[in-house]
């Protein structure tokens, strides 16, 4: 417990690769599998979310369907294969998760870096935007936005990114703020390196680690939030398969056809647990759990 920090001299260099136990690779592997499934699953398993096969309604896992195949994970109230829904749902989750995080990250990092590095008006404006946006609970703002406009994947992405970027901007701003005081930044300025170049070469690279760690945690939050919106029946069009919708579809059948809600629930939670652990690992390597602070 006597945790005196190692007297590491100066700032740390790019983190060295330390051999880590195999177990700690599991989260990355699991997340990788999901990404793989999201990418190639739809090629292997054909599924048309609109196609319904009413003879095959509510089949238990492993049943044979009328078309001759096997519904390994059962079917839902419309006779649609659950395995296929989980696979396609993974694609939606990954698509929305990645796009939302990418959008939030892009906006947040740019604004945060500019505000933190250049300070002044940009910083003051950003701070006020933070204040206003944070006055709304994130999920509520997402619901208002997603509920008010025409359903689409893009809408969900925008609704979730509307507050998602704040965390990135805060973290980046904080890093930029502390980096701008570093002598190597001063040295570059004394040399006459232009501001944009200083930002790009001497500030932004250092946000990469924490931002990646944050992006991972944020990804998990986004996937959960999307599932929540779908559960409330908001946001995604009916033609999009999503875990949240599948879970919501099955909630009335929980006592009799448990698999409809439970299996996508497990798929979702398994992903989130692993993304969470991965995020923790990255955070431990690159920076403190800042997302905790911003809620």
């Amino acid at each position: 417990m006597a945790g005196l920090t190692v007297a590491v001299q100066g700032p740390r260099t790019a983190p060295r690769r330390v051999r880590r136990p195999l177990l700690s690779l599991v989260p990355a592997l699991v997340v990788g599998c999901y990404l793989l499934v999201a990418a190639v699953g739809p090629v292997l398993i054909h599924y048309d979310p609109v196609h319904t096969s009413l003879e095959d309604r509510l089949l238990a896992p492993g049943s044979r369907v009328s078309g001759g195949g096997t519904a390994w994970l059962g079917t839902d109230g419309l006779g649609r294969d659950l395995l296929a829904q989980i696979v396609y749902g993974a694609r939606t989750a990954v698509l929305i998760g990645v796009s939302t995080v990418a959008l939030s990250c892009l906006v947040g990092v740019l604004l945060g870096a500019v505000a933190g590095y250049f300070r002044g008006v940009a910083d003051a404006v950003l701070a006020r935007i933070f204040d206003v946006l944070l006055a709304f609970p994130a999920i509520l703002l997402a619901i208002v936005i997603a509920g008010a406009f025409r359903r689409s994947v893009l809408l969900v992405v925008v609704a979730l990114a509307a507050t998602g970027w704040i965390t990135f901007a805060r973290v980046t701003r904080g890093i930029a703020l502390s980096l701008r005081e570093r002598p190597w930044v001063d040295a570059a300025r004394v040399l006459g390196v232009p501001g944009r170049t200083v930002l790009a070469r001497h500030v932004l690279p250092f946000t990469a680690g924490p931002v990646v760690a944050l992006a991972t945690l944020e990804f998990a939050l986004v996937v959960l939030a999307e599932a929540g919106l779908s559960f409330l029946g908001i946001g995604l069009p009916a033609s999009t398969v999503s875990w949240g919708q599948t879970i919501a579809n099955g909630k009335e059948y929980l006592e009799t056809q448990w698999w409809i809600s439970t299996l996508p629930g497990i798929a979702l939670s398994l992903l989130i647990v692993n993304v969470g652990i991965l995020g923790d690992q990255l955070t431990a390597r690159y920076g403190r759990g800042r997302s905790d602070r911003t809620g």
Partner: protein
Amino acid sequence: MTPAGAGTARENGAGKPAPATDGPILRIEDLVVELPGPHGTRTRVVDGVSFDVPRAATVGLIGESGSGKTMTAQAVLGLPPEGATLTGRLLWHGEDLLAATPARRRAVRGREIAMIFQDPLAALNPTQRIGRQIGEVPRRDRLPRAEVNRRVVELLDRVGVPEPARRMRAYPHELSGGLRQRAVIAMALAGNPALLLADEPTTALDVTVQSRILRLLADIRAADGLAMLLVSHDLRVVSHVGERVVVMYAGRICERGPARDVLRRPAHPYTAALVRSVPAVRTRTAPADPLPGAPATPANRPVGCAFHPRCPLARARCRAEPPKVREVAPDRWSACHFAEEVPGS
């Protein structure tokens, strides 16, 4: 500190062995501190250090950054970093602290051996008034509150804090650097220790403040007969306060002996180079012929004598055989194969 005050805490200290009349108050024998390094390796950051702290004496521990000074001091207090292993013997009045129970070691801390840390701001809890922090050790003795407060005021007064009754209610950030360091010293003195470990007590301070703090420490030592282990990288500080010095390099001892002798006539080429490198204030000196290379660290300590890559006297033997600390003259100990050849000795 009044003699009465001094008595109160001492007598309450339970199970303290009767001080041996003779011999050092603290004897460090073959102390080894190992810390976990990368890839599951272990680094000996303190490697076979032995020296004595005589009763009521000040021992200066000097060496460049990373030479293991802090680790040695922390080992004495029994508070090394997590994962550290300590071996050797730490004889406190003849009792081996390394072999003692945790409770016994805790009882020693603060009351028999106290420590002053380098950065006075970091060493103080920012959310507690300094009076409360100073009074913490007396409070352990279940003294009534008024008595504790009286003692805190007395301690602050003793270390030269003006208006002690008012200042004890201040928070650390409300005090200047010098006052903070005085508060930290008061905190260390609160348990009436017999040995004070001072880890770079003046490094963070300005010269004027530094001279006052050094003077204060000297006064207290003289008044209380306190022994002190003064850790510093600044030869000038040690040369002023220390009666004896121990010079460390890369976790090992190079040289030890009476301060004046060691600094005037070093018996180790490293000490000699250090002394040469210190620029004089009152006389203009040309920049000295510096030692080549960078100081070795315990993590990449050269085989043989750790100093040999930078040593002007180095020979084949130095590269192969780590020198032992030996008595090269009466009360002069050096870990150099060729101590007798050190220029200026």
